[in-house]
């Protein structure tokens, strides 16, 4: 038995299977995972690892286990979309830790949440003074959502009655020297227009461009591969200081 070869084949099987299952299971980021999601992910990862290196049993039971866990996780996600009760059961529910400026000690104890944890997460949210907090909610994924008292909230153009222009998402037109023709077509622009715009900037070919993005206001951001930027040296900094 050539163990290196067997590990190679089994690793390819578990890697591709994991890629498929994680793709099916969705796009949640690690920071958004609930404890249940996290446990499921670890179990699935363990099964994929066992499929690769556990020669004491056949590959098939591990593959079946991996598939069943992925399917059960998918099923739990699907039921959670339909049933609020189930969603709360597997994902937990938000817990209010500060209400109207008062810390709710009972909820803190129930969540096994320490004052140090609360203060740390408040600092991470830019709150260093507890008296600024109106509400703080511990989310099922462990994040703390904070609502500051209205007098501590930043002023927005809306508060001041200042009109603002629409600012949507820009469209990438060139990526790594390649013109993204489909995106160009979607916004009713042609390659000739792009070539003209690049020409105005002294660029002969899209191959010279690393990134080009058209904003919704019509301005074209172009970054060339050639940066023409002289690296700053320590000597330069010394000259500036003197």
């Amino acid at each position, binding site marked *: *038995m*050539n163990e290196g070869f067997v590990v190679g*084949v*089994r690793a390819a099987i578990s890697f591709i299977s994991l890629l*498929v299952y994680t793709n*099916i299971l969705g796009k949640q980021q690690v920071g958004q995972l609930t404890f249940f999601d996290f446990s499921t992910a670890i179990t699935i990862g363990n099964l994929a690892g066992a499929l690769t290196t556990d020669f*004491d*049993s056949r*590959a*098939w039971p591990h593959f079946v286990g991996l598939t069943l866990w992925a399917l059960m996780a998918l099923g739990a996600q699907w039921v959670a979309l339909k049933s609020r009760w189930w969603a709360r059961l597997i994902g937990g529910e938000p817990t209010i830790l500060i209400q109207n400026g008062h810390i709710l000690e009972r909820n803190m104890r129930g969540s096994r949440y320490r004052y140090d944890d609360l203060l740390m997460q408040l600092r991470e949210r830019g709150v260093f003074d507890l008296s600024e907090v109106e509400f703080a909610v511990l989310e099922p994924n462990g994040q703390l959502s904070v609502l500051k008292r209205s007098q501590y909230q930043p002023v927005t153009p809306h508060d001041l009655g200042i009109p603002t222009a629409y600012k949507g998402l820009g469209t990438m037109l060139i990526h790594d020297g390649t013109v993204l023709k489909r995106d160009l077509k979607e916004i009713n622009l042609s390659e000739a227009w792009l070539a003209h715009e690049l020409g105005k900037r002294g660029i002969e070919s899209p191959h010279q461009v690393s990134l080009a993005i058209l904003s919704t206001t019509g301005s074209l951001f172009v970054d060339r591969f050639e940066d023409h930027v002289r690296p700053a040296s320590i000597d330069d900094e010394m000259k500036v200081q003197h």
Partner: protein
Amino acid sequence: MRWALFLTPLVLFSLLMNAGPVLKRPMGIDDRFMAFLEETEQATLAEDWPAAADAWRRTDRAMSLVIRRVQVMSERDVAQDIFEDLAQLQGAIQAQDRSGALTQIAVLKALFKQLGQ
């Protein structure tokens, strides 16, 4: 299209991991493990030890060929047990131990059934 892209590798892997019973069947002249083991058994029953030793060599060679094909879907312990039992069978034949050799042949038959199942 997306689902086909996902399902195709999973189906292929399932087929590969369950291909043991097919892949351990003879695919040539030199990999007929069970046939050679039967020959070894017949020679042992007849106490024709030179013929038994010759059949054993072919059995051992056949297993080396079969194991290459089924190694991905097999348990390592079963494969190791088969080679251990083949070595014990060789010893029994050399010692002209009829009952010992027949016992090892019976174990080998049972292990070969498990291989890649």
